[in-house]
């Protein structure tokens, strides 16, 4: 046991004396969560739009009033002719132009139909889509208001309610993803690099010749990273709760348990990587290309799995991060208990055992 403590102490010296790994360990999580939380967002807020009101009557004024009163849009300018539409878009002043047809109010009252044209800058398709939806919704609610007195014979009313993230805050979607990526990065990449480093330097050989058993060496190398990963997970959860008001509906204890499970899954992957790579560079390349990329692209972190082509949907099942993100979303946003995530949990446990078994096998081959 005393040998072991000395070993772990040595491991911490390595970590704390290497500025690069310190940065990856502590700078990265904070930077990533802030970046994803603040910069990358699908929400629209104070989007600049322009109005081309050919009618300029009481109704159009009321609608414009409603739009500018919402927090989503601010009216940047009024346009007076067709040609200007192109110009404002090209200058990048506004993301949308709202065109009211001539005699808007008259058409509305006489023919029961008036047209409003929403033109959006679709260089960013997601934003364009959201803008269109938001404007339609505002106009729709105005329409409902004026129809209140008249009775339409048949009317289907759609009422929607967004549950678990009613304000559709994208940070709620990113936090579970970022947490997953970071735990993966710290646990898998850093461990595999630190193990291969010993191989590269020749110290692994010295350790194997010493009375320490191979599994003691591996566990000794892994324990500090478990510890650091847990700290990271705590920092991420605290940041998301206090800065982004991310709710944790479910049990914190369950969240902690599942996080530890995922940390161990990633560590076992890291050990596996270190058994197949001889140099730190190889370990890093395998971690980045083989782990980080699929984790970011196929885990449902940024791109929804349900809209992927079928082959990719199938592949996504073998990515541990996918299951952990489901677990995190379940616990944090839906507040589910263990009963609802046992399947995901079992899959992660199974993967972990598989990776460990494979590493042990590879390791034995190397020693022969």
């Amino acid at each position, binding site marked *: 046991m*005393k*040998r072991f403590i*000395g*070993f772990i*102490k*040595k491991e911490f*010296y*390595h970590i704390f*004396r*290497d500025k690069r790994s310190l940065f990856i360990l502590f700078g990265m999580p904070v930077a990533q969560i802030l970046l994803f939380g603040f910069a990358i967002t699908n929400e629209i807020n104070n989007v600049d739009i322009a109005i081309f009101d050919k009618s300029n009557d009481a109704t159009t004024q009321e609608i414009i009033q409603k739009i500018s009163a919402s927090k989503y849009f601010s009216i940047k300018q009024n346009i007076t002719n067709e040609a200007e539409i192109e110009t404002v878009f090209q200058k990048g002043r506004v993301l949308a132009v709202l065109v009211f047809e001539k005699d808007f109010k008259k058409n509305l009252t006489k023919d029961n139909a008036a047209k409003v044209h929403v033109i959006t800058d679709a260089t960013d398709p997601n934003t364009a889509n959201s803008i269109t939806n938001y404007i339609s919704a505002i106009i729709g609610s105005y329409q409902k208001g004026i129809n209140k007195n008249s009775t339409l014979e048949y009317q289907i009313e759609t009422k929607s309610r967004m549950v678990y993230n009613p304000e559709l805050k994208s940070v709620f979607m990113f936090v579970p993803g970022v947490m997953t990526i970071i735990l993966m990065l710290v646990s898998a990449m850093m461990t595999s690099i630190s193990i291969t480093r010993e191989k590269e*330097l*020749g*110290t692994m*050989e*010295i*350790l*194997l*010749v*010493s*009375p*320490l*058993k191979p599994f003691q060496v591996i566990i000794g190398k892994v324990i500090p990273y478990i510890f650091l990963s847990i700290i990271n997970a705590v920092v991420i959860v605290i940041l998301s709760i206090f800065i982004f008001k991310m709710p944790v509906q479910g049990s914190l204890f369950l969240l902690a348990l599942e996080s530890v499970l995922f940390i161990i899954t990633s560590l076992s992957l890291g050990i596996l990587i270190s058994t197949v790579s001889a140099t730190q560079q190889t370990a890093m390349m395998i971690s980045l290309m083989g782990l980080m990329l699929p984790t970011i692209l196929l885990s449902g972190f940024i791109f929804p799995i349900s809209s992927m082509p079928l082959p990719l949907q199938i592949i996504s099942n073998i990515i541990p991060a996918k299951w952990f993100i489901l677990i995190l979303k379940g616990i944090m946003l839906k507040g589910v208990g263990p009963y609802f995530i046992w399947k995901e949990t079992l899959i992660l446990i199974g993967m972990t055992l598989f990776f460990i078994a494979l590493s042990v096998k590879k390791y034995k081959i190397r*020693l*022969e």
Partner: protein
Amino acid sequence: MKNNNVIEVENLTKKFGDFTAVNSITFEVKKGEIFGFLGANGAGKTTAMKMLIGISKPTSGKAQVAGFNVFTQPEDIKKNIGYMSQKFALYDDLTVKENITFFGGIYGLSRAKIKEKRSELVEELGLGDIVNELVGSLPLGWKQKISFSIALLHSPTIVFLDEPTGGVDPITRRQFWEMIYKSANSGTTIFVTTHYMDEAEYCDRVSIMVDGKIEALDTPKKLKEHYKADNMNEVFLKLARG
């Protein structure tokens, strides 16, 4: 173990698939002896040594190291041997002191013992303030000496040195051999691989491996007589060319 042999090897063989890296070698090493294990690169010396230090399993044959069987008691062997690799592997980002403490620790030395050994070492090597410097900042010669001293930290019966003088200048090499003599005089058996033939002259006995087999084994003097050579280099060339 009969008489005072600390290593006894009989028909030890290691095969990787069809390739026989070590082909039925037989030799023994006496206590306190400096045993030179010579051979060209790829002759099989490293493979043979790895079997003796318990990190590679022999295919067949018999071998005892420090009284323990390499097949069944590799863990006991590990406690009784020291090992220094050709990379002088120490942790560059740890100070000399921390390296000593760490390696002492994994061999199970008590804190007091480590401290005692450390002050001994500082005095012997004339380390002085260097003890608190990072190993990475030291010249190769220092690393080599420290690496050797660390291999001796737990007072092993035998110390295995894998090409311990690669890349260092002649004066440092000379100093290093003085350290080897000193520990041999105090009873430690030295098993050293090298491809510097002038160093072979410093050994009590040498074996020369060619293509996985031991082609010659005797004192340097007798080998020179037998092969009618002026120095070990000639002996080696005669053997290697067949």
